[in-house]
């Protein structure tokens, strides 16, 4: 959120009338103003693709570097299509494996992360006890644990799930805990003043207030979990998208590497976007912020 957006959320006056805020400007905005962000963004991407295509094509004649160094966007797109149509590729099996690992690890991390985060936020002593472990493991790149997990769980899905689980777990714990901790003191005082029992305070004041934080944790967890899948499979695996990229790489099939990377990035963007939508839905009570 930018300063401007925060500024817009703060009411300017305290009049008696209801103030559903609307965006204002001194002069009448030009019609294309609404689409400015989309136009400039798309333009930048198109420009980037054009330059990329130009450099890749020029390289094919000028031979500054071996052609497999830099496939052109069209080659990448072609490879992308082939990934899904070539019957020898059997990409669906790899997607299934990676998808299963991702889902298991991510859902597991959500359940455990929310439970621990809520516990640590609500019970200070529980937090004191777990803080050293959370800080230690959060600061450690979880990738260094992959060799250990392979020893413990083998190179099949179990070791991948463990990496994904640990990767997604910490942003969820930390955000959930922050959300529970962040409860407005004024609201707690009101609840106490009316003699609300602890369970009611938790259910109706603390938890709803923590929802935006929890959803942010879940969204950040997606990125960590995706990294976990790919990296764990890159190290050692029989199937999966990471394994696929590794195979393409060692056989110098760069267009396919590019295609697979774009596919993974796309998955991340879509999942994050979905969770962002859910987050926005849960914040309908906030004054409208345009992104």
């Amino acid at each position, binding site marked *: 959120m930018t300063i401007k957006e925060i500024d817009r959320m703060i009411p300017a*006056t305290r009049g008696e009338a*209801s103030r559903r805020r609307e965006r204002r400007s001194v002069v009448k905005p030009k019609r294309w103003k609404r689409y400015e962000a989309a136009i400039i963004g798309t333009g930048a991407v198109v420009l980037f693709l054009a330059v990329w295509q130009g450099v890749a094509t020029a390289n094919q004649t000028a031979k500054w570097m071996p052609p497999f160094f830099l496939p052109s966007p069209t080659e990448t797109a072609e490879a992308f299509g082939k990934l899904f149509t070539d019957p020898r590729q059997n990409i669906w099996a790899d997607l299934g494996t990676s998808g299963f690992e991702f889902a298991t690890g991510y859902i597991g991390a959500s359940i455990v992360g929310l439970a621990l985060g809520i516990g640590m936020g609500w019970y200070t002593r529980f937090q004191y006890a777990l803080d050293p472990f959370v800080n230690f493991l959060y600061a450690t790149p979880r990738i260094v644990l992959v060799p250990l997990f392979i020893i413990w769980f083998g190179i099949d899905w179990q070791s991948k799930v463990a990496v994904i689980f640990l990767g997604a777990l910490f942003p969820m714990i930390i955000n959930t805990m922050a959300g529970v901790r962040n409860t407005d003191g*004024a*609201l707690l*005082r009101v609840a106490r*003043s009316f003699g609300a029992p602890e369970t009611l305070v938790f259910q109706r004041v603390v938890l709803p207030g923590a929802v935006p934080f929890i959803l942010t944790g879940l969204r950040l967890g997606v990125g960590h979990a995706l990294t976990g899948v790919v990296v764990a499979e890159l190290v050692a695996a029989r199937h999966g998208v990471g394994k696929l990229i590794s195979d393409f790489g060692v056989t110098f099939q760069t267009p396919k590497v590019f295609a697979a990377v774009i596919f993974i990035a796309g998955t991340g963007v879509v999942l994050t976007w979905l969770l962002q939508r859910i987050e926005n839905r849960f914040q309908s*009570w*906030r004054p409208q912020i345009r992104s």
Partner: protein
Amino acid sequence: MRRPAKLVATGVVVEYWLARSESIFTAVDGVDLDVGDGEFVAIVGPSGCGKTTFLNAVDGLIPIAGGSLTLDGNELTGPGRDRAMVFQQPGLLPWRTVLGNVLFGVEAQGTMTKAEALARAKQQIEIVGLTGFEDAYPLELSGGMQQRVNLARALLTDPEMLLLDEPFAALDAQTREMMQLELLRIWNRSRKTALFITHDIKEAIYLADRVIVFTKRPGRVKCEIQVELARPRDLRVKRDSKFLAYEDQIWDSIQEEIVKPERLLAGMPA
């Protein structure tokens, strides 16, 4: 005419433990006062005099270190259904609508069936003048409207005594005057025993049957002024000569308190 006492405070002391200097800080030091049944009492005093602390003690939010507090003869030891507070900060749940927030007080107390609470809440919303805004969210409301919700939430619990902690302090001058008028209109319906904290002398005289002036920290009762202005009062009362005389009297009394530290300093060797 003295009404039977509802709230009785005798020698109430409230202390805070200051963690940094590891010392005890006395905020309220021996407050004696009583509030009669159906009486509207306002406490004024210089800022930081412990008047809000005293009110929090009456509400049971903070424990007292000495003395006693009774309501209808029952010792007050914690929050209870017999009191409801209207806070300075509205303290509304931002994810709940006006209706949901008005219901929160009775919901927390768990004393009313849902259907009854809903019916009464709608009535209460009408009384505080928020009809048509039942489904609005707090962030869509102005400060004055948020305080109406705050008031409705407290009134819905139908307490024996209403506690108001500078509820209009954060509002602009015009809205504040309107809200004072509104509060009196609403209060007139039930004539509930009320204890109102403010630093605004005019507000205290306008609203109350009796104004109690606190000394500067640690807070004690300095003096009491019986306000003999006929009810119902409209805003013109504020220009009445009697009103102005009360104002002068209270202002002089508070001024003595504010000037104190300078006298102290003047008496000290340079």
